[in-house]
């Protein structure tokens, strides 16, 4: 990566071996003191809720139980079995995967293409592109969702007016959020709009990090541009592309705000639900906390397997000592 190396391997402390053990003991005590505030918070508000999520998913945890008016009934894996028997769960899972796939592929394609474009133009147009991307990146998910909704509004939206003006008469008053796929498509566009900048910035840095000599040598050897792109540049960008892909999968698989805001809580009759929103609705609208927690656990497990890939790809470049 072209950017400044921020984490050089920490230099070894020049402590003679005899003093080392003594220092280690003292270090341990101060370290515990320094780490205590963060550790307490992370244990209480991150680790404990993870444990609780699993516990709740094993109980029949409804309205009465949540209010403390009924004894908890241990169900074991019944919530999960129930979930797997439901058609709706499988439909939502399939839609989540499809939606996330579209978002991931979209932001990677747009981000990488624009990074290549940015590397081939002069400073001013490049700066304009980066500023615009920065704006899209910085826009809060809620605000972005509203703007896109407004642009595609049935009556007052610019898109319908332009389309009607172009001769598509049927488009005046057309609702983009009504149909399952057009609603998903609209949300996906917003998600891609605000997540491609990360890919673009990452890939741009990667392209800039490739020494000119490498590309020059290849072209001196008579390689054509497409060949240089596929045989020289792409392999060098692969580690970054992998990280950007996995990061995007993690983000897009758990999109909540955009779906919730743009489809008004999961669409007409819940046909725009994704797992995240489904779990939320089960728990807080349906008062089925046990069911909701079970969906949460399933979601976590799916993401954890992606995370395993992420950690493996990081381990190569990360020094943990």
């Amino acid at each position: 990566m072209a950017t400044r190396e921020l984490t050089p391997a920490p230099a070894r402390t020049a402590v003679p071996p005899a003093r080392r053990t003594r220092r280690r003991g003292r270090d341990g005590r101060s370290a515990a003191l320094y780490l205590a505030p963060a550790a307490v918070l992370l244990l209480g508000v991150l680790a404990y809720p993870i444990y609780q999520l699993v516990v709740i998913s094993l109980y029949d945890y409804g309205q009465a139980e949540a209010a403390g008016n009924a004894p908890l009934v241990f169900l074991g894996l019944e919530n999960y079995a129930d979930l797997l028997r439901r058609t709706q769960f499988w439909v939502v899972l399939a839609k989540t995967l499809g939606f996330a796939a579209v978002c991931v592929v979209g932001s990677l394609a747009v981000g990488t293409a624009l990074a290549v474009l940015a590397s081939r133009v002069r400073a001013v147009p490049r700066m304009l592109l980066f500023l615009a991307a920065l704006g899209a990146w910085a826009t809060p998910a809620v605000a972005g969702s509203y703007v896109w909704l407004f642009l595609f509004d049935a009556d007052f939206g610019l898109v319908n007016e332009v389309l009607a003006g172009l001769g598509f008469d049927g488009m005046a008053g057309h609702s983009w959020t009504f149909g399952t796929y057009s609603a998903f498509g609209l949300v996906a566009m917003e998600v891609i709009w605000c997540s491609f900048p990360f890919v673009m910035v990452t890939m741009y840095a990667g392209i800039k990090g490739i020494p000119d000599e490498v590309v020059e040598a290849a072209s001196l050897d008579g390689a054509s541009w497409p060949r240089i792109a596929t045989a020289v540049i792409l392999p060098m960008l692969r580690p970054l592309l992998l990280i950007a892909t996995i990061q995007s999968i993690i983000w897009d698989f758990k999109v909540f705000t955009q779906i919730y805001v743009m489809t008004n809580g999961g669409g007409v009759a819940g046909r725009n639900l994704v797992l995240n929103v489904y779990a939320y609705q089960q728990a807080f609208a349906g008062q089925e906390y046990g069911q909701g927690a079970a969906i949460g656990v399933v979601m976590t497990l799916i993401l954890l397997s992606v995370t395993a890939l992420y950690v493996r790809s990081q381990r190569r470049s990360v020094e943990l000592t």
Partner: protein
Amino acid sequence: MTRRRSRLLAEIVTVLVAAAVAFPLYWMVLSALKPAGEIQSTDPRPWTWAPTLDSFERVLTVDGFARYFLNSVVVATAVVALSLLMSFLSAVALTRFRFRGRTVLLVMLLVAQMVPIEALTIPLFFLMRSVGDVVPAFGLNELGSLVLVHLAFSLPFAIWMLRGFVAAVPVELEEAARIDGASRLRFTWQILFPLVLPGLVATSVLAFIHAWNDFLFAKTFIISKTENQTLPQAILVFFKPEENDWGAIMASSTLMTVPVLVFFVLVQRRLVSGLAGAVKG
């Protein structure tokens, strides 16, 4: 010649793409400034000859958005200040002190960043309910509950990122300070802290954005005490079954976006290099 022409073509495409990417933001600000008649119009124009602050005024005074804005600021500021302090201390411990279990802690930090926090809404809801029985300020319906969760969610990444900045300060500096008679505490606060300040800034921006943008937890925790709502959730009131007040929605969206945009522009270079460093490790 053809090379220059193809570059020119690429530049034209770049500018057009930049305009398209920025367009939704332009539309947001424009719509916020349009008079009501031009917004609720079936013939929207991409400009206005009569810009007005009516929508902003309506949002801020009538609908109490000044209060929600302040709530968002309070939560985000508290998260930034506390995460700065906690992550700095932890990063120092993890880079400068040698103790058993350090590697395990680092791996756990990395894994903690991957936890899908959205899945934790349900247990956190019950946790905050119980916390509220003991310390009301951190219970449901209170801003403290939001501070707690966002602090916990931003810490792993903040520590991970700061670790790099702290490690970049040469150990020789610490030894020199010790020889000059400075205690470790003094070195940490008077020498190390100012040196890693740039890193702290970049880290805190991420924590700020995280807390500022949150919709899910604000919606889950702040149920009945509407005066404690934060911006993302408060905007929902403009969605009415009969007719959405788009002018107000766009004005409040603008109000919500501007602080983030300002922060982003201020620290973008550090943020990008910081992210790159964090991605790389």
